[in-house]
């Protein structure tokens, strides 16, 4: 068999004149079983690729790197609108405002639920109301309407307490 072609290729290989395809031909040639004795010494030179390709990463490499990649997605520049940036604060403020509004409304409505002041015929019971006037005058309190709301049957002693509550 004529190995002239291979010998030529080999010569050109050492001079770095072979193409990738020609280098592949050399690899295939030296990879076969019967390489002539005088070329046999170079068999190994062309086995480097096959030999080296047996070098592989350890088996758990994929698992580890996938965990890292999935844990840390690349930092992406995200458009953050003014609304999305401040919305937590705005929402919190709105929540507080709602609570306060509801609170004040209920407070008002509780106050309004108090019974309407009873129209009292002051003139019919001059004795009672004279006394009352004296008490309020001495306490120097000008809540006439408030006092009017207190039932007239109420004993006099409880009146200052009632006015305190109103204040």
């Amino acid at each position, binding site marked *: 068999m004529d190995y002239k072609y291979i010998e030529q290729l080999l010569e050109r*290989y*050492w*001079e*770095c004149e072979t193409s*990738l395809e020609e*280098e*592949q031909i050399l690899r295939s040639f030296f990879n076969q079983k019967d390489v002539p004795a005088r070329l046999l*010494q*170079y068999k*190994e*030179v062309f*086995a*480097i*690729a096959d*030999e*080296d*390709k047996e*070098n*592989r*990463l*350890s088996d758990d*490499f*994929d698992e*580890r*790197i*996938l965990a*890292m*990649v999935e844990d840390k997605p*690349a*930092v*992406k520049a995200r458009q953050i609108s003014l609304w999305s940036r401040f919305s937590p604060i705005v929402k919190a403020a709105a929540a507080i405002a709602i609570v306060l509004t509801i609170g004040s409304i209920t407070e008002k409505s509780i106050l309004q639920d108090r019974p309407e002041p009873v129209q009292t015929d002051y003139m019919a019971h001059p004795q009672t109301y004279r006394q009352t006037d004296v008490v309020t005058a001495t306490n120097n309190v000008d809540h006439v309407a408030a006092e009017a709301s207190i039932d007239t049957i109420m004993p006099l002693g409880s009146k200052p307490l009632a006015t305190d509550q109103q204040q």
Partner: protein
Amino acid sequence: MKEISFRNDVLPLKDKFFRLALRLTRNREEAEDIVQETLLRLWNKREELKAEGIETLGFTICHNLAIDHLQKKETQNIAFDPALHEAADSDNTPADQLIAKEGQSLIQQIVSQLPEKQQAIIQLRDVEGKEYKEIAQILQITEADVKVSLFRARQKIKEQYIKLNRYGL
């Protein structure tokens, strides 16, 4: 534009990068760390990448990381263990050097004696089958530089084989 997937576009390159890193560092653990870092850096750059450019850039990153590792190790060795270097330099005959490491083929041992640049070029050309142009891109040198280095590397390999043949090994 097609979106780059880690599993399909980045991860399958791992063994190629590993072989280059291993060629240069000759340490499996270090090479594995380098590959991990290379893949993560590639993944973080995915927004700027096209699928075809991933491999070339990955090789560049991997090569640079491996060289950094070697330089770091070099300074450490000089600082802490000068005796190691002297011992390594003293046995100069190729036969001694080559017999020293068992379980490694002659060609692997010869390549491991070459300068780093030549090792990287042999790896990319004779193992990974890359064109000169791509090798130049990966190593960020000129194509002429690639050819000159490859020429020197192959001449050295040839010379060693002829020598060893003469010794009857």
